[in-house]
């Protein structure tokens, strides 16, 4: 009875909050255009400042690189949390995988998926994409391995320890490049100007490609770890 009463109370409170917020929302004036404060400056001089053709990457890994460090740390924390809650000590029960045709086909396709992931990561400062997006593509490889070949195959090829090392290595790469900025240029996460080349080439834009690589491996390994902990079979007596 008290449970029902509490549920009704929660629903009433949430409805009232929604109503109040909606009433505030409809009072808002209509769209009057974007106020161009900082963004105007970035559009005009980001290429000159950072050497990155992709302005979003320039904002993510140069102007506001600390935010990106925080965001990738959020993923790191989420991975640790999911592993903490879902992990079991026993080995997962692996399936035998899908049919022979699927296995052979994906055996041919998988290297290209990896290549595409690496392309998206390494061209983050030149074309749309970057570490976060490319990392997700890399994580798909591990997921394909578990589904098509069975998770035991994935475990033997890329064990969770290896993935953890990759993930931590990616995070430490980001941090190390930040500290390198501190030593060489005088500010944490400052773009490393001595690495800059002509804009548009693959190894240009200072430290941005290297941060992209670090974030890519971190995100890829992190998502693979999340997938791996989720497919593990759980038993009731494990609690």
């Amino acid at each position, binding site marked *: 009875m008290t449970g029902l009463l509490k549920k009704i109370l929660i629903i009433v409170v949430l409805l009232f909050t929604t109503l109040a917020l909606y009433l505030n929302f409809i009072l808002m004036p209509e769209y009057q255009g974007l106020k161009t404060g900082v963004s105007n400056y970035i559009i005009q001089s980001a290429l000159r400042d950072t050497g990155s053709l992709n302005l979003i990457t320039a904002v993510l890994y140069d102007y506001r690189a600390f935010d990106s460090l925080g965001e990738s740390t959020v993923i790191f924390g989420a991975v640790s949390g999911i592993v903490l809650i879902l992990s079991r000590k026993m080995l997962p029960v692996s399936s035998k995988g899908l049919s022979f045709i699927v296995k052979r086909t994906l055996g041919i396709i998988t290297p290209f998926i990896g290549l595409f992931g690496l392309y998206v990561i390494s061209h983050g400062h030149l074309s749309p994409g970057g570490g976060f997006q490319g990392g997700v593509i890399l994580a798909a490889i591990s997921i394909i391995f578990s589904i098509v070949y069975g998770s035991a195959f994935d475990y033997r090829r890329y064990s969770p320890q290896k993935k953890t090392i990759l993930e931590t290595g990616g995070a430490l790469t980001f941090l190390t490049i930040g500290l390198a900025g501190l030593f060489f240029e005088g*500010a944490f996460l400052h773009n490393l100007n001595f690495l800059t080349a002509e804009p548009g080439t693959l190894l240009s834009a200072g430290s941005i490609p290297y941060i992209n690589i670090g974030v890519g491996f971190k995100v890829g390994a992190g998502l693979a770890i999340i997938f791996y902990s989720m497919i593990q079979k759980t038993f009731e007596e494990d609690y």
Partner: protein
Amino acid sequence: MDIKVLFLILVPLSTAFLIPLIDLINAKLRRFFVLLGILLESYLLVSIIINNFSELKKGDLFLQYHLGGWQPPLGINLVMDSLSLIFVVITALSLLLIVTYSIGYIGHHEGKYYVLYSLIAAASMGAILTADLFNIYVFIEMLTITSGALIGFKRSKEASAAAIKYLVYNILAGLLFFLAVLLIYFNLGTLNMADIALNFTTLSVQIKLFITAILLTSILIKMGIFPFIFWLPKSYDTAPSPVTAVLSGILSKVYLYIFIRIFWTVIGFKTLELLNLNSFLLNLALVSSLLGHIFALQSNNIKRLLAYSSIGHIGMIMAVIMLNSTAGFYGGILHIISHMFMKAGLFVSCGYLLQYTRSHAYRDFRGVGLKNRKVFIAFIILLLSMIGMPPLLGFASKWYVLIAFLEAQNYFGAFIVIFGSLTAVIYYLRYIAKGFEEAKLTDTELNEEIYSRPLLSVLYRGKIVSFISYTYTAIIILGGLSFRFLDLPLKISTLSVMNVEKYIELVLGG
């Protein structure tokens, strides 16, 4: 440009990144590694205080760091003024005490626990030190995700349910905060807090109202003020004791800091007055406080009771801050400090006391005081401080809160302070009496106790755990005897809250 301000965030962050690697080398090292990280942080803090002591005394401490070398409106900057300093100091002290406690308490899955703990340390430092609105959002997300995972640490059904509930409420709050940040950027074209504060008054009233409303909703959910208190007791109850101490001792205080920072520095109290929200918020906080104490009266579970009492105290702190007077801030910040140590100390000693009991329920509390007499006496002293007994720190802070309410002629607030203390006497005395009751186990109860799952898998190193309980008690007693030493930091932090123009000038000009 003070590099130490940056390293206050980077030290726990790199600790968190390095722990998985250290796990691969030697799993026993990580405890000392985490302790080393937090000790290094304390050292940095002490050196900051010593280096800038003369400025600190005059009340114009101001350190900032531009990340990436970009000047304020463009890049992110970290700012430490007197208000941040006092929050950073108490947070770092709590972190140090709770990590020592965790070494004694946490017996399994240590690796992931310490990763998440270090991330909480980094995120709370970052949320306090940053001067950029989006950066605050990033750190709030980090706090939510990591603490949500730690609430589910026991992996039982209840713990998972509480963690899911916590995450749903808090991610909703985070999204509302994100929406507010987006709207502010959309309308002002900047994310720097000082820059926003300078230009916020130029917006039209409707936009101001909507931004303020969603910011308020999100921060009220995070703090656990009345209409949004439902996630709080469950998650405090099911989380392991050190996590509960972090939740009530650190996270709620960090959110209070963000509340002060946003509604005094960024949006400005004048905007709240213009929108007629100040008296509404004051009364809402007082009602929340009243309800917290009333719910605590009917609670039959010690950890839930402490959670409800937390709601009462945080409501009271928010109300006294909403008075917007010097006395209000003085009392509010003093009560933030004292509540931080009292509540964390209570949860910490609860973790020791409840190790032999079947559940946290009232009937299982019987005989607890007789089994472990010393810790129970520390527990009673902390409870007396919560009630507001004279020589303890709780009395001093409650006294200043009461004076602030009387000065503002807010008699409802003064009534709530007294009412809270009086109800606290009733609901705490019940548990003290039960704790001293002789436990006579019948055969059926004994069987139940043997076959029921123990709440803690192991509590080895009990000495560290009881030592931390005594330390919290000592802090409360010594703080109560010498709370006048807190006079200077409280005064300068109050000054720095009220003097917004100086903050804006220093951030944008320096």
